[in-house]
């Protein structure tokens, strides 16, 4: 059988199937369209339209707000990471000089205060958004911050220079804070 003949056979079969469907459809299915429209139908249609409009608005607003909240928290996490980097840079500069001058002491305490406040604002904002997991992460980060500050300004600070052990401990502590902040950011983006 040539391809042309095969096509003709399929066309004839399709036509027969269509005619049979039409015939049986008319025998067993009776569909009539009402030509008169009642008040109930109009009300039903209007309420459905309003409901659909409100639902769409609500969903759009809700997901829009959630995105705005996420973006705000992510910005605060970025600010905290910047404050952490500045604190670390101030600390490593002091380590390199092998002594702690009054100006070093003042600037390091100022950077630590800035970091502390960035983390505190982040925690308050996460709390305001009602994110309990995020808040638990912030509380853990606060503990890490207090531990980091203790390494940097505890012991004999500022009367003695930093030891290599203090430097290593401080690097590990700042790395942990950075890791936890980045984890928070990743989790927010995944939601």
């Amino acid at each position, binding site marked *: 059988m040539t391809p042309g003949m095969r096509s003709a056979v399929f066309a004839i079969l399709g036509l027969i199937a269509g005619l049979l469907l039409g015939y049986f459809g008319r025998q067993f299915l009776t569909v009539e369209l009402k030509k008169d429209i009642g008040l109930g139908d109009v009300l039903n249609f209007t309420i459905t339209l309003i409901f659909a409009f409100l639902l769409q608005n609500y969903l759009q607003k809700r997901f829009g707000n959630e995105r705005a909240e996420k973006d705000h928290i992510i910005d605060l996490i970025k600010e905290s990471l910047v404050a952490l980097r500045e604190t670390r840079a101030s600390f490593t500069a002091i380590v390199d000089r092998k002594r702690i001058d009054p100006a070093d002491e003042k600037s390091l305490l100022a950077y*630590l205060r800035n970091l502390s*406040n960035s983390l505190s604002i982040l925690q308050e904002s996460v709390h305001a958004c009602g994110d309990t997991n995020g808040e638990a992460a912030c509380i853990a980060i*606060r503990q890490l*911050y207090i531990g980091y500050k203790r390494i*940097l300004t*505890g012991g*004999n*600070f500022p009367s003695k220079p930093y030891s290599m052990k203090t430097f290593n401990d401080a690097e590990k502590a700042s790395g942990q804070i950075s890791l936890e902040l980045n984890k928070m950011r990743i989790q927010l983006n995944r939601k």
Partner: protein
Amino acid sequence: MTSTIQTPMMKINLAKEFSEIPGPRQKNEGPNSGEEFLERILQPAYDAAVAEGVQLFIDLDGTEGYATSFLESAFGSLARIYGPDAVLKRLEFKSDEEPYLIDEIKIYISEASAK
């Protein structure tokens, strides 16, 4: 008509009554140390607050910042003398400039029992 009942308390403004630049841990390390603050201001005020049965309110704002060494020497040492629980009950703090500072000090007070 409304009325407010305030708990009687004694107050220390650390920046005004001691220094805007709190220093190191001990007196032999430099000026304005935690040890000096404890001996000259904190402990006498604490004793007076206990004698009068009032709270001791410490305003931490107005300084250039606090090193852990200063805080641990002042508040940790006070807790080692009187006990952490008694000190935590008696002291109240204000730190608008650095809210985490209060948690930090409370940790040093609580940890003092282990030493």
